[in-house]
């Protein structure tokens, strides 16, 4: 029979007639007790040894107990001090305490035990020692001394000491081992030690030694040290998913400046210049000179749309329009500025229908920073250009898009935007909670937007905050934990990846 070395040693050291404890076996085999314990359990499981377990109690002095064993119990010290000071008569308490050199909580301990043990009386602030008391016969003091020198003491006194927190009792399991009949037989038949190894080494593999070794068993259920790899940011993962879905639906990605002229950000969108969203506290104007290079014909067309409308029956806004304001540069409040650049033909050349374009990029809003609003966030923007698009096409496109995110039962609430007509707020059924939630804003671009850009067909568009999609799908409570320098690394590390 081949057994690991530690088990062979234990088997040889054990007896069929006499019980041997783990400690004895450890000494006999020159192994660590925990190694022996492991070997014993393995041998027992093999049926080669039997194990009996008994409980042994040991008593240990606490720090306080050890101190009293050294200096004497506080009540005894109090008694002796009282005798010294008053020579057998009652004496004022303060005087005795001073003489006893007791301090802090020991004073209360001394006083309560003084009376309990009949060392005297305390009355009206005076302490009267009983001359007949014998501190040398104090059972508790004697027991402390005995325990300190390793002797056993009476159980009642021990209980008393334990209640005074002067001792603690420990229970310990003593395992005693005897050889079973199978163990004796195995030994008689001969037991050899198999070599066990901790690690498989390159040398073992090349030398062939691995064939002769046993591998020590690991506790495979124990926790392993934490390993950590890098991970794409959860918002990037969400953006990637959106981009996958949209490219799959035939959309091409747009790209363009974050800082842009208000002309591209708002005027092309037929946002009146006195619209509340264009006031200084809602936009991030940049402290730079205005944009010089904007096609003049485009400026003329856009100005005319604002002032006079588009088409025979069209009306303009009854608001002034300033070219200086249009040329002023700000951070874009929406990526629709990219859509305007592409639709105008100034980004990738004149576009002929049909076209589909999208972007998932940052926009900047001078809003209140709170758990669901950031000053900068990602906007999903998409549009479809084709002849004779209808509201039904718009609805079909969005149903398709949102179905990829598990959002169904899309509803279209008629809405108003200055740049689209008809316009719809989109609502959908949350995949987990079943709630009806707002999931975007959409519509058909107005002719006042398209005609000045030179687009003669229809264009439908929609927008949605990427963060909103993330929060809806992953239930983050506070977007600031994820996006920005206040992010929580643990949250990012532990966030489940997007499947």
């Amino acid at each position, binding site marked *: 029979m081949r057994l690991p070395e530690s088990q062979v040693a234990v088997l040889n050291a054990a007896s069929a007639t006499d019980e041997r404890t783990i400690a004895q076996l450890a000494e006999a085999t020159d192994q660590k007790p925990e190694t022996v314990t492991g070997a014993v359990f393995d041998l027992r499981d093999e049926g080669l040894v039997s194990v009996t377990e008994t409980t042994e109690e040991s008593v240990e002095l606490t720090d306080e107990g050890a101190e009293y064993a050294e200096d004497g119990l506080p009540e005894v010290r109090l008694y002796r001090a009282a005798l010294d000071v008053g020579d057998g008569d009652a004496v004022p308490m303060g005087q005795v305490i001073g003489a006893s050199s007791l301090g802090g909580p020991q004073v209360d301990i001394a006083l309560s035990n003084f009376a309990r043990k009949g060392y005297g009386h305390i009355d009206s602030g005076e302490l009267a020692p009983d001359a007949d008391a014998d501190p040398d016969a104090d059972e508790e003091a004697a027991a402390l001394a005995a325990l300190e020198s390793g002797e056993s003491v009476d159980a009642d006194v021990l209980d008393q000491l334990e209640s005074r927190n002067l001792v603690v009792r420990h229970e310990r399991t003593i395992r005693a081992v005897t050889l079973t009949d199978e163990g004796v037989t195995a030994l008689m038949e001969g037991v050899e030690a198999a070599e066990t190894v901790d690690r498989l080494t390159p040398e073992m593999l090349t030398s062939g030694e691995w064939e002769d070794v046993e591998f020590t068993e690991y506790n495979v259920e124990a926790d392993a040290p934490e390993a950590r790899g890098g991970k794409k940011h959860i918002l990037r993962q969400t953006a990637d998913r959106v981009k996958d879905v949209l*490219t799959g639906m035939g959309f091409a990605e747009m790209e363009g400046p974050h800082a842009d002229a208000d002309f591209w950000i708002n005027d092309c969108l037929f946002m009146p210049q006195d619209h509340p969203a264009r006031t200084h506290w809602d936009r991030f104007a940049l402290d730079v000179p205005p944009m010089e290079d904007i096609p003049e014909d485009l400026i003329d067309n856009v100005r005319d749309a604002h002032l006079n409308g588009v088409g025979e029956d069209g009306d303009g806004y009854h608001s002034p329009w300033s070219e200086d304001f249009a040329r002023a540069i700000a951070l874009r409040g929406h990526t629709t500025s990219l859509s305007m650049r592409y639709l105008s033909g100034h980004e990738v050349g004149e576009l002929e229908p049909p*076209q589909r374009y999208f972007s998932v990029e940052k926009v900047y809003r001078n809003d209140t920073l709170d758990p669901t609003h950031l000053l900068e966030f990602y906007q999903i923007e998409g549009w479809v250009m084709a002849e004779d698009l*209808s509201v039904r096409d718009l609805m079909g496109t969005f149903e398709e898009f949102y179905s990829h995110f598990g959002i169904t039962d899309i509803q279209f609430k008629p809405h108003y935007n200055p740049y689209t007509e*008809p316009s719809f707020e989109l609502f959908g059924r949350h995949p987990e909670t079943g709630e009806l939630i707002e999931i975007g804003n959409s519509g058909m671009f107005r002719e006042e937007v398209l005609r000045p850009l030179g687009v003669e067909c229809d264009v439908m568009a929609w927008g949605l905050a990427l963060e909103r999609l993330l929060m809806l799908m992953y239930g983050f409570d506070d977007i600031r934990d994820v996006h920005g320098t206040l992010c929580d690394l643990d949250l990012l590390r532990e966030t489940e990846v997007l499947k």
Partner: protein
Amino acid sequence: MPVVDVQPDELRRLTGHEDKSDEEFKDDLFALGLEFEGVTDDGAFQLEFGPDRLDRLSVEGVARSLRYQYGDARGVSVPNTNDPDWTFVVDDDVPDERPYVTGAVVRGIDLDDAALDSLIQLQEKLHATMGRKRAKGAIGIHDLTMLKGDVLSENASGNSITYTGIEPDGDTFVALDSNDELTPAEVLEQHDTGRKYADLVSEYDRYPAIYDEIGLFSFPPVINGRRTEVSTDSRDLLVELTGTDQWTIDRMCNIICYALAARGATIEDVEVQYEEGTVVKPDFEVETKHVSHDRIETVLGVELELDEVIDLFERSGLDADAELGDETVYEVSIPPYRVDVLHPLDLVDDVGRAYGFNELEPRYPDVGTVGQRHERSRLEDAVRTSLVGLGFEDLLNFHMISEGENYERMDVEVGSDSLGGGEPASITEPYSEDYTMLRTWVLPSLTMVLENNTHRAYPQDLAEIGHVAHRDDDENTRVAESRHVAAVLARHDATYEDAKARLAALCRDFDAELETPATEHPSFIDGRTAAVVIDGEEVGVVGELHPKVIVDHDLELPVAAFEFDLSALA
């Protein structure tokens, strides 16, 4: 978006649907695009809606829309008006900045508390929206019986008031909510409402003022006089509006007149005597626009009968006459309270709403296009995948930052040649002192993330590919924008080598040749800093962060880092 408070009992009374429950109203209102947001302390519905149908800024307007929705009303309705008795004389002294006035006389109104509250709310909401916080148009409503008209000269009969301009201290009056005789200038300084609206007129040489025979009674757009204050006892009202645009104040006036007429009042015209001629107000002219049957069908994506379309128009409070020909075209009449119809397509939207957009069957548009990612975003994605493979946690930080974080805490000087030293693209009126400019580089953001996560387990190996920008007047946008790749390794034994090893691995992935000649950068330790030279071009920096930067960010371990321009890997 505007929110209007509407008492459901008022709605029941004004629609004549006394038996409608609150819940039924909520559904009907949602169908109109008015979203129920909650109730006020005194039980009114708070309804939010898009700022197009400003005629719904009061319970009267909401009730009118519901009556069309229920089919209780059809087509365009215009209140009858009585002949003018009052004239608004516009004086030469009127401030050039605010030359327009309009108004009406309203008689026989029964103002209970609810009606008065509604009128005040409508006035406030119109100020906030069309009136652009009173800058573009401001409304004054007065108890007519408290006014004493000047008798017009010569043969004319009737009464007149005068819209003029006066010196800031040119006269005194007692303003609403006040007991003191104050000049307009004193109102702007001493009266709460005056202070609130002072900016609107403080630049004017002459302040707008309206007089009757007794004296100054209104200081538009700031405040009315106390003498003509409207109460529940008022039976006849004078409405005046001043502003910077005639059309805007005329429409605001119309919305008020329609609301008061809905409560049984009679509207009486007024004459406005401008220097260039006299006009009669309110302007209840019904305008028309033309839209083809075909356009309605293509926008909605359904086929419709002619009668059906006319019915849908009438249910929207419009009238339509079909002009048959090669192409059927409708001449659509638009009531004078509508302020949102700029183009015939706006009428198609009305038809769609009346038809019920949610009745339409969605369809996927049958047009073929080719989808693709932009080159830049593909590259960014590939580099990000490599960084993650190298064990970096991918981060995403704000593009806006403060100058202190971007420069000072990194020990970089503004306008220096060092990476990150570019001139800032600054925000003119920053909302928060933490976000005053676009970041010129990414490492400040990553260092801040380290600073905010010292309680989290190390090593912290973080990377970001992100947008950076600096001011450059040669650019058309005046801002040079690019993307940088940046990484930090914060660990107890981080060295230059750790950063360079990963940088080199990244360059290998993109078949880019990396050289790292020694350089200096104020954020890094001298002698442990190199320029990142990719394919012969200097594009960034790699090294060990300087202890003063580390300590300033409350970090207690070394940080190795690199940052370079993403386009180098293209």
